[in-house]
């Protein structure tokens, strides 16, 4: 279980994070969702005892990240944002190295990493630097798990990884969670929020909202519609110039639209779009997703 209380951290004059409060239950999959520069890495580095907070405290499974830093380092597994394994060592050598550092062996905890490691085992003699993105990610996760940590801290494990590998990675996290490991993960991909038990939406060093993905989506207070016409670029422009518009954002092949009025008048909107020469107008009421909520909180 993780408890973070009033954490604040500045780098020189730059305030990185402030008022950071959240707690994570045992075997919970908790996500920090936010863009680069939001403060996700700073929070993770404090929780992993790599930097000191200016204010506040954090307790991981009963240990204080400042006072009990040695103990903290034994109970956590940490996968930093940058690939930080030894590029010149082979897959097997890297794993062996991390096992040895933690006073254990691959055999002892093989059960925990088996599902993940067996996918890269055919390449175990290959140097880590020569692996593809998806394989590096699997090796890094194996190395972070080899000492059987109670808490796993993963800093943007899926950034720059293709959609297929991303999906597989999240499946692996689900299985680790089922084994009782508490998982703290950060991501800039909004669509990954729905794969967490609970998430904190973070921006500019502040947590904007903490809840289950379902509750966050339900808390979206506007009526939301998806609008589509033949000329999407012009549609975006015209919607932004419409007097009733609260927000209009491109989402794949649609534009998600909210009105300043509590109820959207579809007929009036349609009329306005027809007047602006839009053809094949499609308007559908939809449920908000995490990205809608995030942007609403930002504006």
């Amino acid at each position, binding site marked *: 279980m993780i408890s973070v209380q009033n954490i604040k951290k500045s780098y020189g004059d730059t305030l990185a994070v402030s008022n950071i409060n959240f707690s994570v239950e045992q075997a919970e999959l908790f996500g920090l969702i936010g863009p680069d520069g939001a403060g996700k890495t700073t929070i993770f580095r404090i929780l992993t005892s790599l930097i000191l907070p200016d204010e506040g405290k954090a307790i991981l499974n009963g240990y204080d990240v400042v006072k009990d830093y040695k103990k903290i380092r034994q109970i956590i597994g940490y996968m930093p944002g940058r690939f930080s394994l030894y590029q010149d060592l082979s897959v097997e050598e890297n794993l062996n190295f991390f096992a040895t550092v933690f006073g254990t062996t691959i055999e002892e905890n093989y059960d925990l990493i088996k599902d993940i490691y067996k996918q890269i085992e055919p390449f175990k003699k290959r140097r880590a630097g020569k692996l*593809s993105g*998806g394989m590096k990610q699997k090796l890094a996760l194996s190395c972070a798990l080899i000492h059987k940590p109670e808490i796993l801290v993963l800093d943007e494990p899926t950034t720059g990884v*293709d*959609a297929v590998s991303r999906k597989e990675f999240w499946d692996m996290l689900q299985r680790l969670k089922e084994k009782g490991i508490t998982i703290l993960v950060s991501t800039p991909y909004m669509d990954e929020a729905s794969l967490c038990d609970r998430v904190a939406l973070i921006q500019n060093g502040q947590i904007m909202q903490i809840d289950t993905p379902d509750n966050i989506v339900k808390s979206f207070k506007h009526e939301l519609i998806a609008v589509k016409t033949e000329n999407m*670029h012009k549609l975006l422009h015209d919607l932004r110039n419409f007097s009733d518009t609260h927000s209009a954002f*491109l989402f*794949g*092949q649609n534009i998600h639209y909210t009105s300043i009025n509590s109820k959207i008048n579809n007929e009036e909107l349609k009329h306005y779009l027809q007047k602006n020469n839009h053809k094949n107008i499609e308007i559908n009421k939809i449920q908000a997703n995490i990205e809608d909520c995030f942007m609403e909180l*930002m504006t």
Partner: protein
Amino acid sequence: MVKKEKVIQVKNLVKKFGDFVANDHLTFDVYKGEIFGFLGANGAGKTTAIRILCGLSIPTSGDISVAGFDAYTQTENIKKNIGYMSQKFSLYEDLTITENIKFYAGIYGLSDKEIKQKSDKLIQKFNLSDKKNKLIKSLPLGWKQKLAFSIAIIHNPKIVFLDEPTGGVDPITRRQFWDLIYEAADAGITVFVTTHYMDEAEYCNRLSIMVDGKIEALDTPENLIKQYKVDNMDQVFLKLARKTNA
């Protein structure tokens, strides 16, 4: 979009490294002012193909022309007629905004007068007059990306290559970036883009999806979604790319 004029023509492009076939008979055309999405899993062969199209690597075989120039013999001409931006390589962090503009515009051979004009225009467009003498590293990532893109097209190239340009920024900034892409395409610049964001893939006019060195699908996002009987590009991508993943 003018469909007639082809700015990239690729016929049976093959690139081998030893026995390994990185690009296996790729065939596609890209038109003037088109936003062309070039998708594929990590390791599918996208980077290899992009390096060839940018004149940085010579193909093993096939007929390839970029901006009207041959990919074997006229690579220097290709380089002059394209722009390039990626998340990894963009601006010099230890130079100011104006210095970066000047440097890149100078490299592309713009005259001092043109450089001054373009530089003023860009700084005005982004409302950066009070920040123009600030180092790039002091800017938020979103600003860096917008500037990097604008500088990549400062010499008004025929084609701009964007290799995962928008990683890591917030969803509003990401959309502002796409506004710039549309603007460039409207001005007739062809945009060749790779991304891991499948909603962004849907903003492209056409998409190709590479699997194991081959192009497995090439069509408009709408047609691909219909063809694979799914709801969005994410599902198309998962269906196609799943089998390759190690």
